[in-house]
């Protein structure tokens, strides 16, 4: 990877708010055209990292280069290449869809022609073309978020920073949203996304697992799964909660995670442990159940590698 292929380069980023060390020496490099995911529980420092990358928050220490431009030293120049979309994009609700796009286009000095062509393309992709004259305040939540994305993309950024962009967005809008993101990646836009949805984390080309302000692991989803110690079993039962309490702490059990209608159990040796767990649970009279090997999800990996409940 040459420096030319690197879209975001963060080195030993550190930021404290008073006594709270929000981000500690976070280093990572994101290649051009990647969809890079930042995964971590609330309060792990995701938004703080995003805001430092966007150039609105000054790091206490460390360096950031976006598209080869030093964000700390040359914020104005860097900002032209970046687009930052926070959890709730700041739209002017008294202005129409078209006026919001106009405003954000002008802020980034987008030419009139470019604004009109690109605005049209983006609105079409977002399914908002018929609503251009509607006030932004009268759009649904998902439509507002898509309009936010349109405004964020009107200046054709090289790097897109998305902070939990689909939280609280309906499934249809989420699908549209991801279609736009894939399309952007094909056009060479680098996407840096933080998400609370594990299925979205799976869609990223690489993930950084963030905990308490520090990046613990950084790799592709597949390799992270391989790196997970032990093997995963899924136990389906009518009362998974009490099941979790029974299984925790048993010999050979590395971790137990409640997953709604089932329990994910990480064990050192599945061949040996499946019969052992079966007889244990039968002895406890836990009722009907089913135990089978399972594919780990990102949440399992996060818990196994970071040792903490994940984000979902």
């Amino acid at each position, binding site marked *: 990877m040459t420096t030319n292929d690197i879209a975001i380069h963060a080195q030993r980023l550190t930021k404290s708010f008073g006594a709270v060390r929000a981000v500690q020496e976070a280093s990572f490099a994101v290649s051009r055209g990647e969809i890079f995911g930042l995964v971590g529980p609330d309060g792990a420092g995701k938004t703080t990292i995003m805001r430092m990358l*966007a150039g*609105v928050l000054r790091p206490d220490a460390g360096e950031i280069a976006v598209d080869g431009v030093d964000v700390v030293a040359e914020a104005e120049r860097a900002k032209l290449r970046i687009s930052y979309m*926070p959890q709730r994009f700041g739209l*002017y609700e*008294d202005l129409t869809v078209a006026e919001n796009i106009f405003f954000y286009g*002008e*802020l980034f000095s987008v030419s009139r022609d470019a604004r009109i062509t690109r605005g049209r393309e983006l609105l079409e992709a977002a399914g908002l073309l018929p609503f251009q004259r509607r006030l932004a305040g009268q759009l649904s939540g998902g439509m507002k978020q898509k309009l936010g994305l349109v405004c964020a993309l009107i200046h054709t950024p090289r790097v897109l920073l998305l902070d939990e962009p689909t939280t609280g967005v309906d499934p249809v809008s989420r699908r549209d949203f991801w279609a736009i993101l894939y399309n952007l990646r094909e056009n060479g836009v680098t996407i840096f996304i933080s998400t609370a949805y594990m299925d979205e984390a799976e869609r990223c080309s690489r993930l950084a697992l963030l905990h308490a302000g520090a990046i613990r692991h950084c790799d592709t989803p597949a390799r992270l799964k391989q790196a997970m110690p032990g093997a995963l079993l899924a136990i389906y039962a009518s009362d998974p909660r009490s099941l979790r309490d029974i299984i925790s702490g048993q010999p050979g059990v590395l971790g137990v995670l409640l997953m709604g209608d089932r329990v994910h159990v990480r064990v050192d040796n599945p061949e040996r442990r499946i019969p052992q767990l079966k007889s244990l649970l039968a002895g406890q009279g836990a009722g009907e159940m089913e135990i089978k090997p399972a594919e780990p999800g990102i949440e399992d990996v996060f818990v196994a590698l970071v040792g903490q409940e994940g984000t979902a």
Partner: protein
Amino acid sequence: MFERLSVMLMKEFLELKRDRWAMFRLIVPLIIQMLVFGYAATFTVHHVATSILDLDQSQASRSLISHFVATSRFNVVDVTQNRDDITRDIDQSTATIAIVIHAGFGRTLGNGQSAPLQVIVDGTNSNTALIALGYLSQIVAQFSEDQSSRAANFRADTAVPEIGISLQARPWFNEGLDDRWFFIPGVIGTLTLLQVVSLTAFAIVREREVGTLEQIMVSPIRPVEFILGKTVPFFLIGLGDIALVSAFGIFWFHISFIGNPWIMLLGASLFLLAALGIGLLLSTFSRTQQQAFALNFFFVNPLFILSGFAFPIAAMPKLLQWFTVINPLRYFLVVIRAVFLKGVGFEVLWPDLAAMALLALVMLTVSVLRFRKSLD
């Protein structure tokens, strides 16, 4: 350099235009408050309810009573011979003032001696009491002058020349000593301050709350451009306010305006810059509109009281007098009253104008610096 300012301004005016109630909210409260102040804010005391206890029942006592009945300053509600009536009237606030004419009042005066007259006043409202007492002594002075000239007529042959000083007061600038002339120019400054400070603070905090501030700040716009974009419209609105309310004062309340309109414009501009600085400063201390509201409430009242709008600064304790030094309203009130009523110009008003310019500079600088920090 300011290429992004124009789009900020365009957006501000578009939002203002979109807001159907904006014009209503900006203008109507001003006009209503102007009317309320114009009609209600007055130190003049009229129709002071007065009870008179006449224990003398002489021609002289009746003549004194008729002096009180004749003036609109007093409203004689009760003339009685019973001392208890007086106590009751004051207790029940039927009367603010009670005058006691003792027995022998007329005889003593007839003998060419001076007679005592007792006045009881309800001091609950010290201001009204003081003013009423002032009128009362004028009337009594008038009465005693009448009495002595009558006595002098009787003894014309043995004329003794009267020696005395008679005061001929000639008020300048406000010959009718009309309180309205004092209040209305002050109201113009005060209302504008309240409006501009709160508008500025709320508008910026609102952008912060909705998230548009953060969104704008990730664009290459500079904080100064953002601040100008937010404040220039309020500066213009403030000038409009001052013009509108001044016109109302001049044409509705017939306050004289004899000064130089350009001095007024200069003073108003400097004053507005300082007010914008205060609003901006408040916004940097508030994360939410509720906080801004609380802060606004906390700051604006002292600005108003420590301005000389109603209460003379010279009468304040030294510590509070020091606070008035950093209050732009204090200087603007001097300028606006001078321009309206006195017609004096730059040669007299330059210290106040300079003070406002300095305050505006300091407040804007501090708030811009604080604003940058508050973005983190």
